[in-house]
């Protein structure tokens, strides 16, 4: 770690790092606030409703009001809960979700950490949130919370496997785990140089597994209100509950950023003559499309059953993603020596 030991840490450096962290945090909080608003508006629009339109112009302050309500709510901790873990779980869920954002590159110049194992870093840290969810469910000392936590963990572990294997094809194609390197490898000028076409199987598996990792419809079983009350966070209220919700939406941000960088060419324009538009705009457009896609699915699809979920993960997505690696490797071995 030359960069770490090269010079003594000055207060200036520490302040610099801290301030950039704060900037990213504010951006993410802004995203989460308006993603929730956007989600409710989009779903309302798809269901011929108006969505939130009372608080502020066009209902723009609705989410702010909701968050304020959560923050001033009474914080309850069940008497028989495991107090320490109950308090720790939301924090432990949130920290990795925010930490993974560090490796996502926005443009050629704008990125937070240029890690040469960036993809692995993302995968490794996001696994810790699963641990936090199980802990939250267990610490609540409530059977519904425990069942919800177990389901959630089973689902997230089952889908983490195809998720990781599906991106291996991308890693094979670009020869690096560095997310900036992966985007650079897609710089052909045209949109068919992006990874989503050559890696179409990997992309499909990635999208399905990612939705499941996010616990969103049609895979929102951990929250199945009709059977599980509310899942692993039944006993949580106030700002601790807000932390779990925040974690979910920060992961939406992270997955949208990851899908953009891995499969949709990051900051590259879809055609050479569109290069004059700055990369950050392209990144934002692709990012917004993925976020919209998630909301669109939520308004369209019903929730699937737990056995269907497990069957899909292990019997379809896993073999498909393995076949994808095999095909990619075979192609490179035969044609690209």
């Amino acid at each position, binding site marked *: *770690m030359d*960069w*770490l*030991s*090269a*010079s*003594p*840490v000055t207060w200036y450096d520490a302040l610099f790092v801290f301030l950039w962290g704060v900037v990213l945090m504010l951006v993410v909080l802004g995203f989460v606030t308006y993603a929730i608003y956007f989600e409710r508006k989009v779903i309302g629009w798809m269901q011929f409703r108006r969505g939130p339109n009372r608080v502020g112009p066009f209902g723009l302050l609705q989410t702010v009001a909701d968050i304020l309500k959560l923050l001033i709510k009474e914080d309850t901790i069940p008497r028989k809960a*495991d107090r*320490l*873990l109950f308090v*720790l779980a939301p924090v432990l869920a949130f920290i990795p979700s925010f930490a993974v954002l560090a490796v996502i590159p926005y443009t050629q110049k704008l990125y937070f950490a240029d*890690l*040469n*194992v960036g993809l*692995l*870093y993302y*995968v*490794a*840290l996001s*696994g*810790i949130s*699963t*641990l936090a969810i*199980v*802990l939250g469910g*267990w610490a609540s000392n409530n059977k519904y919370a*425990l069942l919800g936590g*177990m389901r959630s*963990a089973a689902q997230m*572990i089952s889908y983490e496997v195809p998720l990781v294997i599906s991106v291996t094809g991308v890693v094979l194609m670009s*020869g*690096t*785990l560095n997310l900036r390197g992966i985007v650079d490898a897609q710089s052909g000028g045209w949109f068919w140089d992006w990874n989503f076409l050559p890696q179409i199987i990997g992309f499909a598996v990635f999208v399905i597994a990612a939705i499941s990792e996010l616990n969103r419809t049609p895979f929102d079983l951990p929250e199945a209100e009709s059977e599980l009350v509310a899942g692993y966070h039944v006993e949580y209220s106030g700002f601790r509950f807000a932390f779990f919700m925040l974690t979910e939406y920060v992961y939406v941000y992270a997955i949208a950023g990851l899908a953009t960088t891995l499969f949709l060419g990051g900051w590259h324009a879809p055609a050479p003559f569109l290069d004059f538009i700055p990369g950050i705009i392209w990144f934002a457009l692709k990012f917004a499309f993925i976020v919209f896609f998630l909301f669109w699915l939520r308004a369209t699809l019903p929730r699937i059953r737990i056995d269907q979920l497990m069957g899909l993960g292990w019997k379809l997505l896993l073999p498909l993603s393995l076949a994808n690696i095999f095909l990619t490797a075979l192609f490179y071995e035969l044609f690209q020596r």
Partner: protein
Amino acid sequence: MSGLTFNFDGGYAAFFAFAVLIIAGAVLMISTSKVVHMVMSMAAVFLGVGGMYILLDAEFLAFVQVLIYAGAISILMIFGIMMTNHRDAAAEAVKPLKETLAAVGALALFGLLFYAIRDADFADMGGGTLVPEEDNTAAIGMMLFHNQVLPFEIVSVLLTVAFIGAIVLAKKEAE
């Protein structure tokens, strides 16, 4: 960083943070009474060890450590604990003889490991050496799939056998 001059740079700060995490986790692991708390302390140790690997320029190893140990193994243990449904064990009466023997055993194990690690010659592994470079993921891959491909394949066969064995055992129990 020569001699005794103490140069407080980022590396040192990170080293102390991770060292505190590891030691605190290890002590808590022994001193807490609830099994789930023990698993959590152990997860903290795993994370700290991952951090140490980063300080040693082994990023690939570090994040694999976090992925496998702090993530997968901890969750596996928590699942195991929840499935077995036991109560918190009451503190057993401590037997002095047993405790002394355990202490001797632990010290002997430490001595053995310490000696073996000090004595090991990592430069000569029988199949080429790993040259740490900018991208050590690629270097590890090259080494695993060129020089060490046979041990690698044997390990994967072993794991598959264990996996199938576990399924067979679970099936038998279910019937």
